[in-house]
């Protein structure tokens, strides 16, 4: 009996990771990641010498204290003005090649190395969103490029040898684990449990963005309902997104949640990289149909062979 259980468990893991998968959505995730990372770094560009140059806020005497022991900017270039410029420009170059799908895996490797080196060079100015960017750059190293995915074919197609699903699973599991870890931390916090967390959020001056109406921000009952709704949502959405029936509503709810939060809170590109991560759950044919409502599809795209069971490739 135990043997049977182990066998079924092993078989489930094989299906989860090694089943042939439709990886075309990675061709959407990759440029989205590149564009949002480029925007994120463009805001850092004017302060590059300040935060990374030897003449800025981190002179050589304290550079070691606030940089990581792993590889960093100085592993590749000196801390001179041109060295910092060259480092940023190289990073932008590889982000550009990633967006264009030009040697995507090599580009992702270079982005991961340079981005990690940047974060490791100044541990004080980066936060959660940068961790997501760094991890996604790492996962993209394993994502086959658009041409490879096209050549391999799709599950269910004749004479196709599609890639296994696990490069997509890296994103999906990361997003689920991230959100559940967030909510676990929240459940340990007094203000989240007593419902006052959102009261404080709307009063932190550096996180404010577009203001919500007064009847929301000045009503404790509504603020408490909002606080507890966030917890309930963060528990349920990353679970419901794995089931075929609830996947689409969960994706729409997550999209709305991140867009609304981005409108009301100044968190730079955090919600945009989160939306990019949740995109890994979207079935490419659905995305393609949605895109077709706004943009005219090319003949090649229209003639793409249909999948036998695209849903099964992504959902549990």
């Amino acid at each position, binding site marked *: 009996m135990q043997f049977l259980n182990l066998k079924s468990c092993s078989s489930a*893991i094989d299906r989860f*990771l*090694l089943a042939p998968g439709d990886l075309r959505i990675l061709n959407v995730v990759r440029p989205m990641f590149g564009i949002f990372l480029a925007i994120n770094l463009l*805001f*850092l560009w004017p302060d590059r010498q*300040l*935060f990374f140059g030897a003449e800025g*806020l*981190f*002179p050589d005497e*304290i550079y070691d*204290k606030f940089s*990581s*022991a*792993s*590889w960093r900017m100085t592993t590749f270039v000196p801390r001179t003005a041109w060295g910092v410029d060259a480092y940023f420009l190289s990073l932008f170059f590889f982000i550009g090649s990633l967006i264009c799908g030009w040697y995507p895996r090599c580009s992702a490797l270079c982005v*991961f190395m340079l981005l990690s080196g940047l*974060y*490791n060079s100044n541990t*004080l*100015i980066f*936060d*959660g969103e940068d*961790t997501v960017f*760094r*991890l996604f750059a790492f996962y993209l190293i394993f994502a*086959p490029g658009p041409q490879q995915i096209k050549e*391999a074919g799709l599950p269910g197609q004749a004479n196709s*040898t599609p890639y*296994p699903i696990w*490069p997509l699973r890296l994103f999906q*599991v990361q997003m689920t*684990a991230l959100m559940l*870890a*967030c909510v*676990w*931390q*929240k459940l*340990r*916090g*007094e*203000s*989240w449990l007593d419902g*006052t*967390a959102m*009261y*404080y*959020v*709307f*009063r*932190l*001056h*550096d996180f*404010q963005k577009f*203001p*919500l109406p007064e009847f929301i*921000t*000045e009503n*404790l009952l509504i603020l408490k309902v909002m606080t507890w709704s966030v917890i309930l949502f963060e528990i349920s959405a990353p679970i419901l997104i794995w089931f075929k029936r609830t996947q689409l509503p969960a994706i729409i709810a997550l999209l709305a949640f991140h867009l609304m939060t981005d409108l009301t809170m*100044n968190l730079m590109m955090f919600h945009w990289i989160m939306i990019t991560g949740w995109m890994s759950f979207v079935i490419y044919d659905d995305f393609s149909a949605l895109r077709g409502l706004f943009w005219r599809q090319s003949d090649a795209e229209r003639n793409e062979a249909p999948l036998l069971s695209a849903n099964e490739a992504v959902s549990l």
Partner: protein
Amino acid sequence: MLKSLYHSRPLVLLTVLGFWSVSLIEITPKVSEFHQQADDLINPVLETTSLWQGNWDLFAPGIDTWNTHLECQIKWADGSESTWSTLDWTNASQWQRMRNFRRNEYFDNMITNQGPSLWPALSDHIIRTMSVTEQKTVRWADLKYRAETILPPDQHWRKAYTTPEFHAPLQFYSWYPHAIPESEIMFFGN
């Protein structure tokens, strides 16, 4: 050749499941001594490979309950004074908010244990910039901060989106050029 690695069952199971197991140890709150020991063991590996992700304590478990504002008061050789300060977030435009996001991450560290190492370089930078703008010679500079503690709503209801009610500025660092004699430092200090 490369594609066959994608289908290699032992390789995929070992690396992917191994990575997820290690990440699970890292991101979950430490529930036991054994969990903490395992985390201590894997942390150096994750840091060296830049694959660490912390425990995702975003706005949790506790949420910040204070607003802060940094100032630098500069006394010039001609007796005049200038004040440099961080962004007035309440009245800032969306562009300024985006533009100052990283700087804010840096300024948040000023009043922490890491702050003292950062103060001299920040003062140097402010004085260097202001000296060029004002075309004056600096004699003295004080770094100060103002803070507002947001009390629980049942103790004091604070209206949202209003300018924080900061307390009086608290000086935490003084900068002076080495050329100033000790007696003068005492004079200014008093």
